């Protein structure tokens, strides 16, 4: 506590209050910072590194790069990824593994990027979606490989 006289205390107190009032009055007229979501849905652009949810990019021929090795599944700390693969025989008689179903549970994902880092082929990536609310938890479990898709042949 500073030593102030009765009147001096009042004067400095009022001065400090007036400074505060001046500050808020100045802000009263400054441009507002509110972002009006969802009105700005069209223009709102997330940063490209933003981690919305895991996706498996497909090209125009409905091909992805996943070979079903399961490294992402092993890397995931929460067990959010389930990779089902099967063995099949190629035309030249070699046994190869291919992806059947790639299940991803958005509900338990904590976006740690270990799966994308672990992937040797860059088959999975995070997208910039942010409207992920659903009414049923089961809907958060997504299949990332599309129907009828297959592995892109290496060139």
């Amino acid at each position, binding site marked *: 506590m500073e030593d102030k006289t009765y009147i001096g205390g009042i004067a400095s107190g009022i001065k400090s209050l007036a400074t505060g009032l001046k500050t808020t009055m100045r802000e009263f007229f400054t441009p507002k*910072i*509110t972002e*009006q979501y969802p009105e700005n849905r069209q223009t709102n652009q997330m940063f490209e590194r933003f981690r919305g949810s895991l996706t498996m990019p497909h090209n125009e021929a409905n091909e992805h790069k996943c070979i079903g090795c399961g490294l992402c599944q092993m890397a995931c700390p929460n067990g959010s990824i389930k990779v089902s693969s099967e063995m099949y025989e190629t035309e030249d008689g070699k046994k190869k593994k291919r992806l059947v179903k790639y299940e991803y549970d958005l509900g338990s994902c904590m976006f740690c990027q270990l799966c994308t880092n672990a992937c040797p082929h860059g088959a999975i990536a995070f997208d910039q979606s942010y409207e992920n609310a659903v009414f049923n938890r089961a809907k958060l479990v997504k299949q990332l490989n599309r129907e009828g898709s297959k592995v892109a042949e290496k060139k």
Partner: protein
Amino acid sequence: MFNFTTITNWLHSFLTTTCGFAEWGAILTESVLVALVIITLYAVFAIALIYMERKVCAFFQCRLGPMRVGKWGLLQVFSDVFKMLTKEIISMRQTDQFLHNLAPFLVVMASMITFACLPWNQGAHIIDFNVGVFFFLAISSIGVVGILLAGWSSNNKFSLIGAMRSGAQIISYELSIGLTMLAMICLTGTMSFSEICNDQYVNGWNIVRGHVPAVIAFIIYLVAGNAECNRGPFDLPECESELTAGYHTEYSGMHFGYYYLAEYLNLFICAGMASTIFLGGWAPLQIAGLDGFNAVMAFIPGAVWFVGKAFFVVFLLMWLRWTFPRLRIDQILSLEWKYLIPFTMVNLVLMALCVAMGWTF
């Protein structure tokens, strides 16, 4: 200047002569009509104030405030009120049910009666008699009973602390309010609100006439009035960060709504009183020597002047509220007893001196 008595006289004669009501019947009908008007106005002003508070607060905070319901969120408060009306009033075990249910009505009743004291226009006073100021002070104190009862009957420790704080705070600050009003009564020489306004219409606004002591009284009135309304920075009784919601923690639905309503109307009443006593009530702005200007000003109806001034004071109070942090209970009391009371007393003497020596405009 438009005088509202023409309308009231016409109505009275309409009821007695055209409709053939007996005198008592006409008065009864008029009372019912006035009561309905007052209740409607009460609700309308509450909605306007809540909307204003949300917008003003948002603008101080670099936000936009409600924007979603209706254009610029104009319908936001209506939807909030509708929500409040449809919510369940939860009754709790181990509370004093009777007092618990009574308390919000006391609060809202006190604020409605004081609301009826406001002079809206020349000739539009609802409750007006020669000791109007006393009546106003007395009725406004009923509200604190409601708050204390709410805290006590809720059987909640937070509520009780909030109510106790509120009791201490409101009773203390009533002194300041009374003393500042007394100072202005010194100047006007009457306790009737209608005459206070008439006097200011004729002689000019009190804040100008009373110059220095009136300005001091005005500032102190604003501080004390803010405290009386339990609004920030004096919102200790319900201070959110300490006592969650203070005395109305346990209230739900429209019972809570009454407190909410009363809080905003008390704000308006406080501002309305400030405009009545200091800023001329419904009296228009008149500047000696500028006749054309004065004529234009006098053309604007008194009710507009009154409400306009009241909202100006409301804005001042909101500005204070959204700028300052909250005080602590001991600081609130020391502000009152160590600073405001001595100042109001000195101010009262100063005002009396000014009036006695004729140093007024």
